[in-house]
């Protein structure tokens, strides 16, 4: 019954977008209620659909569109878990925003745009073909631009919005090129009769794509998947297109929470998960995914260590965690095949809960103290108990703290959601290392786990403990803001226990679509105790290091934090990535070379030579001559008219009409 209305999951927030945009000022609380109601509706339908299709059904609805394309929705296990997560987290963020954005005069615009943002992401998830996926994907990009630049009167926000748009555009172009290449290959395959579309299915539908995999040449498949991954790199902020994500902190904190947890960066991971059978058929691409993911996880974590802006630390943390998800898809994909989707999606969803929680906590802190700089905070624990406690829960989840009791014969482990989800990825990376002897992704993952734990507890200790370092009267946020924190904290703590059920459900995803994936050889050797404990050990180690430095203050790190230290300089300048992006690529390359040569061609050659000299002068000279015809003497005109009529009469008489 809910499944029949699945299209409403997207359409309700779109409707709310239109109504709020035009009527928001007249509605209660700047129009916040409509989007909240719409997204709550989306969540209810998603959840109802989940109950209907669990455990082994899928919903497909499809309409013919044009030229063999279609629009349609596909709800399979992969989609439905994402739908529930996105609509639920987005709902909580919207409720929180009622408090957070209470004093902003542009509330209708804010709520309209976030509503559209959510709708676009839900559209990405629901798509049953890659073209529709791409359209919704672009809509997500547009909304991120609008929302990052929400305070467009701030030059830094406008610049950040532009950067986000341009950098993700690089990925989008690659993604589009991948779609074009895929379409080319698909029509080749279909017209050569090596493979025929099922009746009622369309050429760019996921199921047709997967069914055609064996017929596409492996080299082409590798190229297609790499181009798809290029899109995912842009959207999910993977190295080297990660720079826009930390800059995106210029938007309101709730927008950051939406982007980082629910509605944007996960789209890239979802793209790879959605087209995973193609990646499995192209192992070289999987290797690239694993390496880029692993490297990003470590690379971003190092920058997270030194940032002083509370949101920027979290932003690097997101980049790093997205790296984990990619690593999970890549490395675990090579080791255990289709199961990698479950592992990665599980981390995606648990990350969504605790990262949304972190951003909302950060928003609560910023709301209270009026600054983003953690050096000016401190000692907030007593004043903001709920925020502080929910934040430490999120931090524990991010650091993956827990006790793997399973390995001692006890049927369950104790731990936060991140413990279950991240460890699975790290173990996947290890399994890959064991099978191939290539331990580099595993080393990346473990080092990143250590750094993750250090930076997140540094953040927590500097914000909530010690003595206040500035004269601000902090206070706990209103209920409308703290309640979502508590709900998210519950999920961050307990979501991990759904692990085995989740894997069992999502792993069936591609079987339900009738996709056969290459099963990888290799026995499932239970990893040794030390490997199982390794992530927890580094997590606790990171906590202790932070505790030692930032709580007990036994170790003075001020010697390290100077601009003389080359390592610190490198990190605080973010590996000179912003400089590279704006100075070298932006100013030197784009402006000085491309734009100025374009200007030269336009001004000097097209305007100067062609327009001025050739077209302009000819027209001018011609005009000089021709205007003599206009004598201004009426008799001349009359004479011409009479002559003309006379001629006509003569012609008529000669023609003998």
């Amino acid at each position, binding site marked *: 019954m809910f499944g029949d209305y699945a299209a409403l999951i997207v359409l309700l927030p779109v409707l709310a977008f239109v109504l709020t945009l035009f009527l928001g000022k007249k509605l209660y609380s700047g129009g916040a209620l409509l989007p909240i109601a719409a997204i709550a509706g989306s969540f209810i339908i998603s959840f109802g659909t989940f109950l209907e299709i669990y455990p082994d059904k899928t919903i497909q609805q499809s309409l013919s569109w044009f030229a063999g394309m279609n629009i349609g929705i596909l709800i399979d296990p992969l989609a439905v878990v994402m739908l529930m997560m996105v609509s639920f987290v987005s709902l909580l963020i919207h409720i929180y925003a009622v408090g957070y954005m209470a004093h902003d005069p542009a509330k209708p615009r804010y709520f309209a745009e976030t509503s559209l943002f959510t709708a676009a992401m839900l559209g990405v998830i629901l798509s049953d073909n890659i073209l529709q996926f791409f359209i919704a994907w672009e809509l997500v990009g547009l909304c991120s631009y609008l929302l990052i630049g929400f305070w467009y009167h701030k030059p830094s926000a406008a610049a950040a919005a532009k950067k986000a748009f341009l950098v993700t555009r690089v990925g989008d172009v690659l993604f589009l090129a991948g779609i074009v290449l895929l379409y080319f290959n698909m029509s080749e395959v279909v017209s050569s009769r090596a493979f025929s579309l099922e009746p009622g299915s369309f050429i760019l539908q996921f199921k047709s794509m997967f069914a055609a995999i064996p017929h596409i040449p492996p080299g082409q498949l590798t190229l297609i998947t790499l181009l798809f991954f290029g899109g995912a790199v842009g959207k999910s902020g993977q190295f080297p297109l990660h720079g826009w994500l930390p800059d995106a902190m210029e938007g309101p904190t709730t927008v950051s929470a939406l982007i980082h947890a629910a509605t944007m960066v996960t789209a890239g991971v979802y793209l790879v998960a959605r087209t995973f059978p193609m990646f499995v058929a192209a192992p070289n691409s999987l290797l690239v995914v694993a390496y880029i993911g692993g490297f990003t996880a470590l690379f971003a974590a190092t920058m997270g260590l030194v940032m002083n802006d509370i949101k920027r630390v979290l932003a690097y943390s997101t980049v790093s965690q997205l790296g984990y998800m990619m690593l999970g898809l890549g490395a675990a994909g090579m080791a255990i095949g289709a199961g990698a989707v479950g592992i990665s999606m599980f981390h995606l969803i648990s990350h969504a809960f605790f990262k949304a929680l972190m951003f909302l906590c950060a928003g609560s802190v910023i709301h209270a103290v009026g600054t983003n700089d953690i050096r000016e905070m401190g000692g907030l624990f007593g004043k903001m108990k709920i925020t502080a406690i929910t934040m430490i829960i999120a931090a524990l989840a991010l650091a993956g703290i827990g006790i793997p009791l399973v390995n001692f014969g006890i049927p369950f482990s104790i731990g936060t959601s991140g413990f279950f989800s991240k460890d699975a990825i790290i173990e996947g990376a290890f399994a890959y290392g064991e099978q191939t002897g290539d331990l580099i992704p595993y080393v990346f993952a473990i080092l990143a786990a250590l750094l993750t734990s250090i930076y997140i507890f540094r953040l927590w200790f500097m914000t909530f403990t010690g003595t206040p370092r500035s004269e601000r009267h902090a206070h706990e946020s209103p209920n409308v803001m703290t309640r979502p924190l508590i709900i998210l904290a519950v999920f961050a703590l307990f979501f991990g226990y759904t692990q085995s059920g989740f894997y069992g459900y999502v792993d069936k995803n591609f079987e339900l679509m009738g996709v056969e994936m290459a099963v990888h050889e290799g026995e499932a050797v239970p990893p040794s105790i030390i490997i199982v404990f390794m992530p927890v050990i580094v997590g606790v180690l990171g906590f202790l290091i932070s505790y030692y430095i930032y709580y007990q203050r036994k170790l003075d790190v001020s010697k390290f934090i100077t601009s003389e230290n080359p390592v610190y300089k490198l990190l605080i300048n973010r590996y000179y990535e912003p400089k590279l992006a704006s100075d070298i690529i932006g100013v030197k390359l784009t402006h000085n070379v491309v734009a100025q040569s374009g200007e030269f061609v336009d001004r000097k050659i097209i305007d100067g030579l062609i327009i001025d000299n050739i077209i302009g002068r000819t027209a001018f000279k011609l005009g000089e001559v021709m205007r003599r015809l*206009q004598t201004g003497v009426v008799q001349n005109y009359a004479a011409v008219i009479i002559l003309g009529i006379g001629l006509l009469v003569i012609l008529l008489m000669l023609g003998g009409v």
Partner: protein
Amino acid sequence: MSLYTYLLIAAIMFTVGAYGIITQRSGIKILMCIELMLNSANLNLVAFSSFNNNSTGQVFALFSIAIAAAEAAIGFAILVALFRVRDTINLDNINILRW
């Protein structure tokens, strides 16, 4: 008199009018020439009407005369106004519409 005679007279009147419009420079003379051309057309209308036993042409000629009267009134009014401003009605001097 045959129809042919009427048509010939009308044709002569029309040609004289047209010739006058092209060659004359005085505004009043040009206006008179225009009247001449109009009346040659009226003459045609009446002649055809009479020879075809159909009164429509004569009614039409009446309308045409009325309109010609109105047109002449406006034309002379313009010329009077022009004379007051420019002290001439020689159309050679009234050519500011030119390039």
